[in-house]
């Protein structure tokens, strides 16, 4: 206490208190607030599945539909005042909305942001199987582009084994290693698939022209998204998988226009997706800090708050000290 008493009137004491308080709140918030991982752990059945059509369960799909979709979209998919008619939208739209976590929506009046999918891959496959069998109008709407790579494997899909389930340390460690290897193998497989898809497209000019002509005026040149009219916004597409981008184009979610396969052909879509995904992984040649690639607004902000501020601080510094005979 003496140590504090002696220093509490120090000119810097006030700043120290403020910094400590900020740190306390910051760390406290980070410790107590639910993270995305925890939130997801509650909703995500931790099981992986293949997407083979063979082992889909239409009955299970019906349960999911009735529980999570029917409230707004009605039991036969004909829609209610809260949700649109689903019968003609096609499975690509269902896959896009659910796999990007936008559906099921908490608030039908608000535009849903992207989030983790609330069901497992298997459940989604069942849901789509049920949709195709019972709700879809013939073969209306676009099908799922199965040859376009889907999303990268999630860490949560490969749970680390729990120590209590194992007899001894050795077998436990073995299991941990196995899970790790499985995850890495899945990542590798996905990356190979992704690269193969991207590699098929080597006409940067076509991809760039298609992207800058059709997509960039909402999603911006970098895919970072942008504001739209009436309080809506075009989401950033950095996290979107090639398949999700493809599905968005053929289904036209929300305010987005539909770009069917006759408007932009599948190989053009491949070029387009390749262009924007390659651009996003492009390193920042101009320096480690890229200002989120927001552009001129951020650059102007930095030029004032860092550039000019530092120089003015220097001016204050060099004129502060004056010798008596100056």
């Amino acid at each position, binding site marked *: 206490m003496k140590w504090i008493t002696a220093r509490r009137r120090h000119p810097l004491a006030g700043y120290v208190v403020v910094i400590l308080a900020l740190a306390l709140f910051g760390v406290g918030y980070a410790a107590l607030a639910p993270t995305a991982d925890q939130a997801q752990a509650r909703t995500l059945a931790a099981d992986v599945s293949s997407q083979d059509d063979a082992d889909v369960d239409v009955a299970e799909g019906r349960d999911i539909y009735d529980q999570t979709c029917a409230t707004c979209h009605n039991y036969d998919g004909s829609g209610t005042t809260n949700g649109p008619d689903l019968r003609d939208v096609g499975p690509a739209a269902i896959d896009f909305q659910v796999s990007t976590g936008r559906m099921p929506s908490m608030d039908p009046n608000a535009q849903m942001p992207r989030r983790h999918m609330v069901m497992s891959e298997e459940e989604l496959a069942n849901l789509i199987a049920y949709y195709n069998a019972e709700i879809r109008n013939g073969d209306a709407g676009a099908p799922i582009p199965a040859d376009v790579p889907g999303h990268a494997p999630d860490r949560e899909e490969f749970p680390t084994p729990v120590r209590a389930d194992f007899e001894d340390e050795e077998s436990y460690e073995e299991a941990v290693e196995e899970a790790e290897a499985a995850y890495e193998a899945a990542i590798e497989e996905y990356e190979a698939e992704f690269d193969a898809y991207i590699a098929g497209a080597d006409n940067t000019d076509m991809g760039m022209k298609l992207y*800058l002509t059709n997509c960039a005026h909402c999603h911006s040149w970098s895919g970072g998204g942008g504001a739209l009219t009436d309080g809506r916004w075009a989401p950033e597409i950095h996290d979107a998988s090639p398949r999700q981008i493809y599905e968005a184009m053929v289904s036209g979610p929300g305010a987005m226009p539909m770009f069917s396969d006759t408007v932009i052909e599948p190989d053009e879509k491949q070029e387009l997706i390749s262009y924007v995904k390659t651009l996003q992984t492009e390193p920042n040649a101009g320096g480690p800090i890229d200002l989120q690639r927001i552009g001129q607004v951020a650059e102007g902000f930095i030029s004032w708050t860092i*550039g000019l501020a530092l120089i003015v601080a220097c001016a204050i510094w060099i004129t502060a000290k004056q010798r008596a005979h100056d």
Partner: protein
Amino acid sequence: MSKTTQAPKALRGVGNFIDDRFHLAKMGEKNLRKVFPNHWSFMLGEIALYSFIILLVTGVFLTLWFKPSMVEVIYDGSYERLQGVPMSEAYASTLYIDFEVRGGFLVRQIHHWAALIFLAALVVHMLRVFFTGAFRKPREINWLIGVGIFSIAIVEGLFGYSLPDDLPSGMGVRILQGVILSLPLVGTYVSMFLFGGEFPGEDIITRLYMLHILLLPALLLALIVAHFMILWHQKHTQYPGLGHTNKTVVGTPMFPAFAVKAGGFFFFTFAVTAGLSAFVQINPIHLFGPFTPTSITSGLQPDWYMGFLEGSLRIFPNTLDFDIFGYAVPVAVLIPGLGVMGLLFGALGAWPFIEQWITGDKRAHNVADRPRNVPVRTGLGVAGITAYGVLWLAGSNDILSETFSINLYLTTYIFRVLVILGPIIAFIVTKRICLGLQRRDRETLEHGYESGVIQQLPSGEFIEVHRESSDETVEILSSKPTITSTALDETVDDKGVESPESRKGMGKLRRRLALWYTRDNVSVADVEAHSGHHLHHSHSTEEQDKEPAH
């Protein structure tokens, strides 16, 4: 302290040779001993000067490789992602500077950051001059030159931004063309003349290049030199203080002290600019891709100094457009695109003369005003900053809308209201703050400063002991000029006849403005330093004090 040492013979010989012919010693003696007032706010203009030097040097470097040509080439340079893409030679050569020229990327980024800092420094320097009244006689001409430098620098920046012919460049040029087209009668002709045909044509980059590297920098350089020569001749203004009068300048001599400081300051400015360029990516043209007239992207703004024009274009309502004989007059582009710029520079250029007209003050001023002592001018300045700031923010309304999840249309309405209300509120608030500070100054002058020591009087009353301020403070506070105007002098002569001047409309307007300009000021003319009763307490606590507690 030490005996005078003679220079080495070789030096003496050369020195004498030159001195015999040009009389440099006398000139050097006079100019090297020139005195510079010591205050950080007098260094702001130097930041602009140093940034300009950095711009010249890096700009020369860039011209060695840049090809201002719109001839289409197929890129086959070392940047793999764009290989095989058709683009203009201008864009291809910029990629060459970035990826093939050693240090080219860094120099391009230095050039761009220096441009942003150059204009920012111009603005803060101009604000300093405005708020301290340093534009008053005899410095009106130099103020006008400064306004000229500011306006040319903005255009110079816009043209430089347009040269690489990347996506944002092309969009910027397209907006420039839109504004040109909005000119009634001559718009289409000027556009066709500038672009050599339809947009984008094949000439615009070549022409902007000539303007960017030859004409505009030459004008800037000439104006900057004139600005400096006038400054050198008229000397700096200085803040009020002991020994600071309209006739004497107090400060550091040019040589050696100030020269060392200024030299060091140049290197610091360069270090900050180079540091930013090394670590923070700016205008990554290789990511944007080349401009084609069909390409457009959201989330792009001009560089910050054009932001206020972008903002005024974004929020100006388009309901005022009209047709005349079948020709459209796009008021919604004409007024925000050209009118706002004209208003800004017109108001800046005219202000010294308006102020002189209102006050009738024809004296020369070498001692700067403290901003609080001229509340109306300070209030107008802050109102101007507010209007500019609101327009500037409006230029990034899509970024704000997305970042803070505000409805885009709502931001437009908010900015439309703010651009009218904001300056009015800012003026009133600033004026009140200035007057409050004036009252506190008067209080400090009269009573000294609060020492923080509490004493109890025999009567039981507690008082805080005030101490006398330093001579410097007293000088600063008591030298507060009283703002008056000749328009408020008695205009009715002894025969009861009003002077013809003040009977006219302009005379009446001037009188009203003068009232508004001088009203509410707190005078210190009747105050003798440290005559207040607080001091009385501290000096003679034993005496019975009849005055009420305070």
